[in-house]
Structure formats: C-alpha cells, structure tokens
C-alpha cells in the first residue's frame, strides 16, 4: 500500500496510464463509458439533427387533437404526449438538464459529504461539531427547507446569473446541500476505522502532514462507498429535480426534464405505456452506465487489484 503510494508520488503519469490500462480491461466499465458517451451525444447533438421544438403545441385545434398520444412512428419516433408534443424532442431536451443536474448535484453532494466525513473522522476536535451539523441537516424537513432556499435565493440568483443559469445553480445547490449527509456519515465511519490501521499509524509516525495523509492514504481507501453514494445519488438527484419542478420551484412548467416526463408518464401508464418507458429507460441507462464506470474506476484505482 505504501509502496503504491510512493510510486504515485514519483511517476504520476505512469500511474494514470496504469489506471487507464486497468480500466480498459474492465468490460463493463468500457461498455458503461460507451453508453454514457452515447447518451451525452444523444441529448447534446440529437436536437441539432432532430430539430423539433419540444414545447411546440399545434395551434390548430383539429390537428392538435389528431396528433395527441400517438404511438412511435416515422413522424414521431418516440410518439407524442397528451398535447401532441414530440416525445423524442422532449426526451432529448429533458436529458440535457437531467444529466447535468444529476451529475453536478451528485458531485456537490459527494464532495461535500466526503469532505465533512474525512474531516470529522480524522480530527477529533471537528468530529463533534460536524456530526451535530449533520444531525441537524438530516432532521430538517426537506420541503420547507427547499421552499425557503428558493424563496430566499431565487430572485438574487436570477438577477446575478440570468433566469436559466440562476435556476440551474439554485436547483443543483439545493439538491446538493440536502443530500450530502449520508455520504458524510458513511465516510466518517470508514475513516474512524482506517485511522487506526497500521499503515496510517506508520504514515503518521513518520510525520506525514494532514493534507497528504488525506489525499494519499485516506481517500483512496474510502473510494468504494463514495462510488456507491455517487451512483445512487445521480438517480435521486434526477428525481428530486422533478419533485422540485412539481413544487413550482424548478424550471418552467412546460420545460421537459426526465423526472417530469416520468411523472407525467405514470399518469398515462395504463393507456400509453411508452410514455413512462422512455424517460424511465433514459434514467436507468444513465445510472447503470455511471455505475459500471464507477466499478471500473474503483478497480483501476485499487493497486491491489491492478497488480493482479
């Protein structure tokens, strides 16, 4: 373990190449990466190819009625919704926001949680205050908390960053700030045990400064629960975003996101099962692919497995 850490210091480039070599051998991880990149391309490049306005409602009443709730066909590859809006365009437009929200909010939560967890686990003096803070945030009822955050910061953010970026920043920070606690508690628990391990004692006895201790010895060993927290976090962030827009706190009501599409789809599930299938599939694929990437990354980062 300490050997591996030493190589990491001396030849960082070859270390990352090692990681990549190991990552490549992981079939699931490569597949996950491929699917993930394909999803990104689908939502980012897709709208340029399939240039249909996701919020377009045919103003001609007769035509609108005719094009409602259509099954998939050449004209509408994924069908239409209850107002005749093109589902493919909606899934693509929604994906941009949902993937971004999922990844950014999850990163904020995991980063915050890991930081709090490591600090609390490692430094006795910080443990008390940080864990009491965690208890406090865990205990707060989510809904009023979000309402208050939005109420306090929405206008200020919209003014500073423009309405769309403002909403995005607000949503990801709201989700991030309310979902880091579990990661923090888990990481702290792991760190408490790690701290007493021989290699950490050894590192401490040779006078390793705290920041190096955290980066070289602690973090690599808590990576697996963090990865789990991250993959589970993406899906819950995507769903929480939709919950927020149902509270009227997120994006405008005609703006599609995967969570919102899924929620609307559930209402129509009996009559038009495809309505719930597409967003459900998109979210599941995202989470699955990130999970496999995470699996591969963890194996690749673990010198014991890499050595084998």
């Amino acid at each position, binding site marked *: 373990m300490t050997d591996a850490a030493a190589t990491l210091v001396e030849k960082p480039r070859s270390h990352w190449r090692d990681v990549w070599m190991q990552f490549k051998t992981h079939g*699931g991880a490569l597949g996950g990466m491929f699917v993930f990149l394909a999803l990104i391309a689908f939502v980012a490049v897709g709208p340029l190819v399939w240039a249909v306005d996701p919020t377009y409602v045919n103003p001609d009443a007769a035509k609108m009625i005719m094009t409602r709730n259509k099954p998939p066909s050449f004209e509408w590859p994924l069908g239409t919704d209850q107002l005749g809006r093109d589902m493919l365009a909606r899934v693509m437009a929604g994906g941009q926001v949902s993937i971004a929200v999922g990844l950014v909010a999850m990163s904020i939560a995991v980063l915050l949680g890991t930081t709090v967890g490591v600090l609390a686990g490692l430094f006795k003096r910080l443990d*008390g205050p940080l*864990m*009491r803070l*965690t*208890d*406090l945030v*865990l*205990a*707060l*009822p989510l*809904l*009023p*908390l979000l*309402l*208050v955050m939005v*109420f306090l910061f929405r206008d200020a953010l919209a003014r500073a960053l423009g309405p769309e970026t403002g909403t995005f920043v607000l949503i990801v920070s709201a989700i991030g700030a309310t979902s880091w*606690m*579990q990661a923090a*508690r*888990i990481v702290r*628990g*792991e760190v*408490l*045990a790690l*701290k*007493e*391990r021989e290699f950490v004692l050894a590192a401490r006895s040779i006078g390793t400064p705290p920041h190096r201790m955290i980066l070289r010895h602690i973090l690599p*060993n808590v990576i*697996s*629960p963090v*990865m*789990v927290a991250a*993959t*589970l976090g993406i*899906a*819950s962030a*995507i*769903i929480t975003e939709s919950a927020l827009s149902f509270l009227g706190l997120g994006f405008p009501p005609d703006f599609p996101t995967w969570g919102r599409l*899924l*929620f609307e789809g*559930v209402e129509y*599930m*009996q009559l038009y099962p495809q309505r*719930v299938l597409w967003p*459900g599939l998109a*979210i*599941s694929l*995202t*989470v*699955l692919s990130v*999970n496999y990437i995470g699996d591969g990354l*963890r194996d690749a980062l*673990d010198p*014991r*497995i890499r050595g084998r």
Partner: protein
Amino acid sequence: MLTFVIRRLLLAIPTLLLISLVIFLLVDLAPGSPMSEIPRTVPPEVRERMMQAMGANEPVVVRYLLWLRQFFLIEPAYVIDGWLGTNLAGNAQRVLSWQSRTPVFDIIGQRLPQTMMVIGTAYVVGILIALPIGIYSAYRQYSWFDQLGTFVAMVGSSVPTFFTGVLLIIVFSVNLGWFPSIYDTTLEVTDWASFKKQVMQMALPVTVLALHNATEISRYMRSSMLENLGQDYVRTARAKGMGERVVVLKHVLRNSLIPVVTVIALGIPTIFGGAIIAEQVFKVNGLGTALIGAINASDLPTVQTLTFIFAVLIVFFNLVADILYGILDPRIRYD
C-alpha cells in the same frame, strides 16, 4: 465507552434544543399559510380571526416558547396523568394541530401502528434481502448473479416509488385483483381471516418499499465486501487453512459492516418519518402523510412536533451507530 455515551447524551440536549429552534424558524419562514386550504370565499377578516384563535398571529418567539412548554412540560404531565391518574397537567393546552385542532400526540398515536407495521416491516424485509445479496454478489463478483443484481439494483434506484407503486396497483389490484389498492387502517387483527386480510393489504406497499431499501443497502454491502476481500488479512486467513465460510462470514463480513451499519442506523429514524409517496399511493395514511399534509397546510405545531421527534431519533441512532463501530472494530476508540 460508558463515559463517552454519557457525554454524548448530555451533549445531545443542547444540540436538540438548537435543532428544535432551527426547525421552528425554518418552518415559520417557509412560504405558505395555515389558511391555504380554506376556500377563497372566506373573507379576509374571518381568516384573520381564525389565525388569531389558533395563536398563529403571535410573534415567533412567543410561539416557540409556548411549544417548548407544551412539549416538554405539559405533554409529559398528560402522560403521567394517564398512567397514575393524577392531575398534574390540569387543563393546560396540549400541542394542538392547527389543521384539525386535535392534540398532535393523539394523531401520532393513531398513525404509529400502520407506520410501524408497513414501513417497519418493509425496512426489515429490505435488510434481510439486501445483506445476503450484497455478500454473495461481492463474493462472486461479475458472476451472472452479481450482474443481474447490479442491473436490478440500478433500475430499482432509477425508478422512484411513485412509479413502482402505481405499476403494482395496476397489475395486481386492477388487472389481477389479487391485492387491495387501499390500506384499511381500521382493520384489527383478531383471527385468521383478519390476519390474512392484513397480510394482503400490506403486501404491495411492503414490496415497493422493501425493494427500494434493499437496493441501497445491498450496494453498500457489496462494495464494502469487495474492498475487504482484497485485503491482506483475507489472504492470511485463507493461508492459515480457514474454511471459506469462516473467512467470508466472520472475518470479511465483520470488517465490511461499518458503512452498512451507518446506512441502517440512518434508515431507522426514517421509519418513523414514514414513506410519503408510498403511503400516499397506497393510502396507508401513516406519519409520512401526516407530515406532508401538515407541511402543505403550514400546520406548524404538527410539523414541529413530528420533525423534532424525528431529530431525537436521528441523534439517538447515530449514537448507536458510533457504539456499534467500536464493537465491530475494537481499534476505534472515542475516549
């Protein structure tokens, strides 16, 4: 260890007081008014007077102190009166819900049984499924069992309970007619027939929630097992000629439990918090719907009381988790 527990328990008192204050201010600051469910035809003066009668117009400090007094002095006095037949409480006002003018503790008493029954069972079932799946998935990493488990868990974590709940109702209640879609909270289990009825009405909500819980716990179990299976001590144990069963279930499992214990300890208080969506979908009407209903109606005394009890449970179970860490890994010491 004992001094640690005592110190933590003493520390919990100011912590909880602070938490109660923060919750109170937060709920008070949140937009919304107790009058939101009153029809718009009711004129403003009448609304004003209704607010006054509830005490919702008092300054926030007064209301907070009143709640503290009611919660910590009057409610316990009522409990003691109930036990011993004394009259400590006199006619002092208990914590009353603004929405229904019923004592909040009576509401909790009405709702606790179905919450414990459904959410609690789901949690236990979830853990019982998750642990073996997590252990075996890690032990046979990348086997078909593990791959299938991963797939199911990831799909399970991406489709929320509002989807799985409705799906199960459509399939099993509407199409097949096997299970009821509405939970009967008035059902009392007295004989075999009513017990069967109870099991039937619990089946769907418990399935939905147990799957949801199992997903998360099994993932943490699996990853933590994987981490430990690669450790040197496992190799040593095997080299010593120990049986696989002992190596995996005694050495590895014990060392892998720390994150799982954390997740479970964090989960137990949420049983009390209820499962809002699942409760709503199946009309279980437990504490989760009580809380969300109170939040929607800005019913401050109810929100405050429920959330505060929730906070007490969180603080308590986190302490339990900390004690368990020490038992699982004796090297962890707090003194």
